[in-house]
Structures are given as structure tokens and as C-alpha cells.
């Protein structure tokens, strides 16, 4: 239900993990590799994780959600390694009897991932590469341009 993987993520499989007879609503977030960030063109990305801790943090986020929105079921898969433009980096699926909970819990999950889970991306452009220092891509730590 909460995994860090090196292979392409199958969205359908993640959704299947949260389906059940009383889940009237399933909200899914798919994060893909975007080509343009501001005016820079991404060629590809590399994601690196502190894998056991990242897996543990995803599981914790799942537990937090279960507590805050009791009838929801959550599954999260985050890919690491080499990703091309358009590739799926993360899939979050939340099912719930009520759609409001599913939207809120899903949104909560991605915000938590972007602040807490030890995963880092390195953007590669035509003219260099850079480890991205926060989730909005506005802070950098080293710039090899």
C-alpha cells in the first residue's frame, strides 16, 4: 500500500488497492515529470530516496490519514531512479464513502510527501543539472551549470 519503487508505476494497480464496496469516491493524484519549470526545459530527472525511512514515512502518512478521516483507505507509490518527461513519479489513491474526505485526505498526503518524505530529485537540463532543494523547485543547493 505504501511503496518506493524503481519500475514504472501502474496507476490502475494503485487504485485497485483502495477499492471496496463502500468506497463511493476514489480521488487519485498522479504526479508526472513536467517538461517546463519556469523557462527551463527538463531533459530527465533522477530521484533518490532514503528508502527504508521514506517507506516508513509513507506508512505513517497513511496512519495519520486513517486517524483524521476514519473511513478512508490510502495507497501511495513513489518511483525513484531515472525518469523521463511525462513519466509518473508518484500516485496517491484515497477511497472513501464520501467524496469530501477523499479530496481532503489526498491533498493532505501530497503536501506531507512534499515536506517530509526523504526523496530528492535532480533535474537535468541541456546546460546542466541541479538537486532541487524544496518541493516547489525554487531553492537549489548546488548548481553545476
Amino acid at each position, binding site marked *: 500500500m505504501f511503496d518506493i519503487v524503481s519500475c514504472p508505476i501502474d496507476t490502475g494497480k494503485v487504485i485497485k488497492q483502495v477499492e471496496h464496496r463502500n468506497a463511493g469516491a476514489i480521488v487519485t493524484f498522479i*504526479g508526472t515529470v513536467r517538461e517546463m519549470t519556469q523557462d527551463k526545459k527538463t531533459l530527465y530527472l533522477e*530521484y*533518490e*530516496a*532514503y528508502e*527504508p*525511512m*521514506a517507506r*516508513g514515512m509513507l506508512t505513517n502518512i497513511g496512519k495519520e490519514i486513517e486517524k483524521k478521516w476514519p473511513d478512508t483507505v490510502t495507497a501511495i507509490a*513513489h518511483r525513484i531512479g531515472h525518469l523521463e518527461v511525462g513519466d509518473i*513519479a*508518484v500516485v496517491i489513491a484515497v477511497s472513501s464513502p464520501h467524496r469530501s474526505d477523499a479530496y481532503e485526505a489526498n491533498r493532505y498526503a*501530497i503536501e506531507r*510527501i*512534499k*515536506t*517530509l*518524505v*526523504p*526523496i*530528492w*530529485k*535532480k533535474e537535468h537540463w541541456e546546460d546542466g543539472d541541479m*538537486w*532541487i*532543494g*524544496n*518541493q516547489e*523547485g525554487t*531553492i537549489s*543547493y*548546488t548548481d553545476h551549470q
Partner: protein
Amino acid sequence: MIQVLLFAHLREQVGCENLTIHKKQMTVKEFKELMEKQYKLSTQEVMIAINEEYATDSDVIAEGDTVALIPPVSGG
């Protein structure tokens, strides 16, 4: 012995994925100061995890622990 894990730009800066520190115990604050002095790492925005749990400056790192330097994350 304390095991230290490095990731992302910190790993590239130091040039290796892990280090060992031969100390019996130290606070997170002392650990950060050591990293700054010895490896010239800026730890200002770096979080510290002890055995895969986030720690605060006053937490104590003991022999046998695994400590990770966690720069601001960018997953998702």
C-alpha cells in the same frame, strides 16, 4: 561507532554515501557542528534523522545509531 548517511547534494559534496564517527554519544547539535567543521557542510536547512526518525537539536545520538542528514526534500 555512529553510522552517518548522506543524500543528494550532500552526498555529492562529501563524495561518499556514508561515514562513520567513532564516538560513544553526542547531541544532534554537536553532530551538526562536527559535520560543518569537518566537511564544510551547511546544515542550516538540513534535518537530522536518528534511526529513520526525525530528531531535534537536543536529541542524543548513541553508539550503534544510524544518523541521516536530510536536506529539504523534493519528492512528489
